[in-house]
């Protein structure tokens, strides 16, 4: 499993946790600010993950020297 998807999932889950904790309002101001900063980092990270993936549709072909990744031929609609 690639690192990317795991960390996106974990990041958004952590972000959700942080927001819930913050919304309860039971943290000290210092802790709240720390949480907020972490939350901002996480949203930035998640946004980055959403945008950084490149669209690619390929076909994996078993060749003599192992798998070859080729552009997927255009498919009729």
């Amino acid at each position, binding site marked *: 499993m690639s690192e*990317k998807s795991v960390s996106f999932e974990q990041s958004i889950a952590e972000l959700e946790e942080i927001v819930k904790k*913050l919304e309860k309002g039971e943290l000290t101001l210092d802790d709240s600010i720390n949480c907020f900063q972490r939350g901002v980092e996480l949203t930035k990270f998640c946004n980055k993950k959403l945008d950084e993936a490149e669209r690619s549709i*390929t076909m994996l072909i078993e060749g003599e020297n192992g798998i070859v990744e080729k552009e997927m031929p255009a498919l009729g609609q």
Partner: protein
Amino acid sequence: MPTKSVLTVSELNKYIKDLISRDIILSGIWVKGEISNFKSHYSGHFYFTIKDEKSVLKCVMFRSHAASVIFEPEDGMKVLIRGYISVFERDGQYQLYAEEIQPDGVGALYVAFEKLKQKLASEGLFDEARKRKLPYLPASIGVVTSSTGAVVRDIINILSRRFYNVNIKVYPVQVQGEAAAGQIAAAVRRLNELGNVDVIIVARGGGSLEELWTFNEEVVARSIYESRLPVISAVGHETDFTISDFVADVRASTPSAAAELVMPERSVVENRLDSLKMRLRNAILKKTAMERLMLKRLGESVAFRQPYNKIYQERMLLDVQKRYMQKALSVLSSQYRNKLSLLAARLDSLSPLNSLARGYGIIRSEKDDTLVKSVRSISVGESLKVYVTDGTLSCRVEEISEKPHGKGTRGTGDTGEAGKGAGDPAEDDKRAGVRGAGVQIEIQDMMGKPEGGLK
């Protein structure tokens, strides 16, 4: 007697066997029939006959082939058998040596399906507990399906619509026919080896039970079971269930549904993220606003606004205490004043001045100012001072007469007579004089002070 050579039974049987064995058709045939007298020998061989309406054929299937039969053959089952015809010399009987046996017709396929399903279920391949969650946002999706046709196109279209920067790797395979199962299993294993996808979709469009049969093959089921990556099985239509569906982590009713399951819509993810962002912002704003308010309240608290309040308050309390104390003191002093005036009145009643007022006098020698208590300390012609209530008299002694001893006039002479007739102190006896002197000393002390000092 026959002229031609005579054969033994064995020779004949051997001859027939050789004859049959040389026949090309009989050495590899498919025979269709219904099983009867089925016996699964402890050795692992199957012995049975197949029949149709008119005839019966003896069959044997040796362990080496019988072991690979995935269903349990039984009497009455219609089957297709591949094998060859040979002769069992001992009994002089030809029979079908079966190498492969398949259920014949849909009903039989269903039986085979159920058998495999039970077998794999008992091995735990379908356990819910071992099913993995799909990744929320897979970075890359492997699709094992035919590279041509509607299925791969639909999957790509739907994934692209949901998430434009999607990453799809198609692993083309045959999805029906003899080679299909092996190819699909190999593709699933290969994708696991490569590890360049987060999730695998195994898909095929709709078809007949026979056409979908590949996805009921054990080798496909095992490859899915062994996959490290989560697998979505999407075979046929909503009503089609295959073994792959049971063993996969998620069953999608159709290939299009698989595409929708595996990838969230980008807008949904963005909304989720945006909403979290907003909530995060609001939460911290609320927190800081609350803290600011608290601070403001603290600043506005009485202690900060009127720092002297406390002091004033304490001073007020002090004043109250002081008043209490003064009151208590004045009560106390008036009590003492009363007591004092009582004492003074009593003292006053004892004062010799009163005695003076009643007509007594105090006599002192002019020369040394000593009290005159006896005639013996005085000589004729001496000057004396006599103190009476309203002044002093200066006198001269003209005559001295001593009282004779033993004469007891003590009772009255005590204070009364001792001083009576200031000029006659001699009349007092010694003891009375001493007592009188006590009083007189007091008076003498008082005399220098303003008159009536005690009143």
